[in-house]
């Protein structure tokens, strides 16, 4: 108990109609990395927001290094010694790197900012993370990974005792993740307590010492990472039996079910400078083709040029053997292509419209403004997909923003299925949704495939790609580097192709 740094006892927080946290205990020790796990709605975010002073708690106590604290704003939390790095980089793109590190606590004399001192401090903070970066550079011109590191440097600039990392890795590729982990481990060895929130199991097991699991706002338990098998962890998170979870792990080879040999989509030498080097790819009806690769390897870029969001500058594209030229998403939809984009909130849902309106939108758009679907037809479509996709909602007139992430994803799938597509591109359809809903979406993908849809499936989670795909295209550094078919698809095979040039990537990750 002596080495406990953060001690949360009986923390409760309610929102009107929702009990987000009920009497949760949470302990972080000095010099450890502590994973905070749970499905969406488990209360992770609420817990963190209470700790960082964004929300006010209803009941309970928080002690940091033995002292009772009551942060009422992120500023006060920082002053207490709690620093946070968020999933989306929360820095100021228009200001310089140095200023981002020091903003809000710039050194001043008589109120006058000392710019020289800011530069000096920024250099020191960057050096501590072994980052070689010009502090006068405008932040917005740096890559996301660098920005994430700057956020970390900022968090370290105050003498933090507790560092909270809220899904810091979701937009980093594997190499960047291992860089980040190196830094985190160093900070841990310096005696910091680190809270690590993530959806990635691998990362939890490679870097953390303890795991605390929350479910429905309640504490499930605290475990030693080394002593909790993965399947057990998943089971605790979703509150199911470990055997049910094991059933999810089935691979769907499905090669024998593919009905036709003629591809629906075929691209040859198709590419765009700066996005993705020219590549060949074909998808047959009834086939799931997985696109595997690290973030930034050109997966989303490939999807975008196929769907006409970006224009290709080389190669040709064939649909049903006929050469076509797709210049916009509208064009693609007309040719019965569909695309669920990576970022559901930004590129997917229309938050303040109803489920019904979200479902009919793409079909209506393909018909044009003048041929309006009758209300009866709209209701019929909404009911059909709510039932078929098992969307949990009181009714079709519910606003989509009130649904959970997994249900939003199902509605978006419904939006595209309503257009009766022949090819659907799914870019990270399971990102940020809970394990139960993930399994359901995977099952849906398999069902759709059996019905004869061609599917291009993009996911960062290799197990998922392995489970659902009949063919996997592997991308690295914006280039296609390999292709696996049927039984040859294993996590190991994909990993070895991705990681071919830098074997140490894997080593670091699984250290």
């Amino acid at each position, binding site marked *: 108990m002596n080495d406990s740094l953060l001690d949360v006892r009986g923390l409760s927080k309610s929102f009107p109609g929702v009990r987000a946290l009920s009497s949760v205990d949470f302990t972080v020790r000095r010099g450890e990395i502590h994973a905070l796990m749970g499905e969406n709605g488990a209360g992770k975010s609420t817990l963190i927001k209470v700790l960082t002073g964004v929300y006010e708690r209803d009941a309970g106590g928080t002690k940091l290094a033995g002292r009772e604290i009551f942060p009422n704003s992120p500023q006060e939390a920082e002053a207490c010694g709690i620093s946070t790095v968020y999933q989306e980089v929360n820095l100021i793109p228009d200001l310089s790197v140095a200023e981002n590190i020091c903003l809000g606590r710039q050194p001043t004399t008589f109120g006058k900012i000392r710019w020289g001192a800011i530069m000096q401090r920024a250099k020191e903070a960057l050096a501590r993370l072994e980052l070689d970066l010009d502090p006068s550079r405008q932040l917005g011109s740096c890559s996301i990974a660098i920005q994430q590191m700057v956020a970390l440097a900022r968090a370290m600039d105050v003498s933090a005792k507790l560092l909270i990392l809220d899904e810091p890795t979701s937009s980093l590729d594997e190499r960047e993740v291992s860089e980040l982990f190196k830094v985190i481990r160093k900070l841990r060895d310096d005696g910091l307590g680190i809270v690590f929130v993530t959806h990635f199991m691998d990362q939890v097991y490679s870097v953390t010492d303890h795991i605390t699991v929350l479910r429905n706002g309640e504490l499930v338990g605290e475990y030693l990472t080394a002593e909790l098998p993965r399947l057990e962890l998943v089971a605790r998170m979703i509150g199911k039996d470990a055997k049910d979870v094991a059933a999810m792990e089935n691979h769907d080879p499905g090669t024998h079910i593919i009905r036709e040999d003629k591809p629906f989509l075929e691209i040859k030498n198709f590419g765009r400078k700066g996005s993705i080097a020219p590549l060949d790819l074909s998808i047959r009806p009834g086939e799931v083709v997985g696109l595997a690769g690290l973030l930034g390897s050109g997966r989303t870029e490939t999807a975008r040029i196929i769907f006409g969001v970006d224009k290709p500058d080389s190669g040709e594209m064939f649909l049903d053997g006929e050469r076509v030229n797709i210049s916009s998403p509208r064009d693609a939809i007309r040719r019965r292509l569909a695309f669920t984009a990576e970022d559901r909130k930004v590129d997917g849902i229309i938050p303040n419209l109803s489920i019904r309106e979200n479902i009919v939108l793409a079909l209506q758009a393909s018909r044009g403004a*003048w041929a309006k679907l009758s209300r009866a037809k709209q209701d019929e479509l909404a009911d059909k997909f709510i039932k078929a996709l098992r969307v949990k909602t009181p009714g079709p007139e519910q606003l989509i*923003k009130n649904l959970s992430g997994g249900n939003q994803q199902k509605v978006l799938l419904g939006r595209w299925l309503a257009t009766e597509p022949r090819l659907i591109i799914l870019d990270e359809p399971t990102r940020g949704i809970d394990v139960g809903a993930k399994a359901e979406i995977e099952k849906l993908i398999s069902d759709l495939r059996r019905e004869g849809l061609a599917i291009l499936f993009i996911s960062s989670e290799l197990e998922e790609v392995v489970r659902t795909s009949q063919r996997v295209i592997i991308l690295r550094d914006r280039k296609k580097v390999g292709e696996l078919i049927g039984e040859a698809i294993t996590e190991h095979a994909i990993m070895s192709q991705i990681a071919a040039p830098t074997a140490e990537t894997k080593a670091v990750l699984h250290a």
Partner: protein
Amino acid sequence: MLSFSIILFWVVFAALLFFTRKLRIFWPLLALALLLLFNQLLTPGFFKLELREGHLYGTLIDILKHGGIVMLVALGMTLVIATGGVDLSVGAVIAVAGAVLAQAVAVHNLSPGVAMLIAVLVSVGLGAWNGLLVAGIGIQPIVATLILMVAGRGIAQLISEGQVINFTDPTLVFIANGYLFGLPFTCTLVLVLLALTYALTRGTALGLFIEAVGDNDVASRYAGVNSRFVKFTAYVFAGFCAGLAGLVAASEIKSADANHAGLYAELDAILAVVIGGTALTGGRFYLLGSIVGALLIQTLTTTMYARNVSADIAPVPKAIVVLAVCLLQSEKARRYLSKLFPRKNMATPAPKFEAAS
């Protein structure tokens, strides 16, 4: 004192309020009812109606008549705001339309029909210019329409060569001063435009597209909505509405005054739209709400005239309305209120709990 018709009026209004109690339009309607009630009790003669030569006269009729310009402009503005934009140039467009109309009739001796057509077409053109800047080039709407707001009155003066041009053509004078079905002709004009707007947006899928684009532009484009076309259409339509309002404004004073025609019309129209329940950030829109909002603004102005308040001071109560509307629509303000009256906290929407994860 209370005549039968006045009792009937209040009964109908009360019934209206009752049936709309769960709709967005309830609040502006209630505000209008309270303002009218205030006048009923404290402003003598406010509800007096006279029938002369088959035409109705009275303060209430004046509200309908003079509110015409803002109502017309507000319809177009509703669509623009729903796309997530705003059109600051409508006042300037009103001035241009008036100048074109007067110049065509008084200087070039064109027939009134042709003159009106040209004036409206020019306005549509100006709307298309705004649409081009916003939808074509992708300039922020406040900025894009600011250009025409600044330059528009200069253009109007250029057209009218800096003169106030008078005209006497009976057809043109009729627009704002004539009567149809016992009511001012502007009422018919507003109703026709309302019906047209309704048909344009709800009879087709354009309304859905407008709301989708206003709520999430990128997602709408990925879903195949032609977002540029939708926005462009909204600005063109706003130009069209401003053009019609320009005809009314010129007809009202039988001349074109480039400096004063439609002054503050854009602000009144935006206010009307927001009062009506359409959020400035775009998304869901409420056409009838905007009409009620425009009526509320005009009733306020007319109340002031009827109570002999100087026209110059009129902005003060208007400011109070702006403030009240803002506060009513602010979720935060409602939350403070529900803290004050804890029993009725059901009005507070549950926060997006899941989304926080």
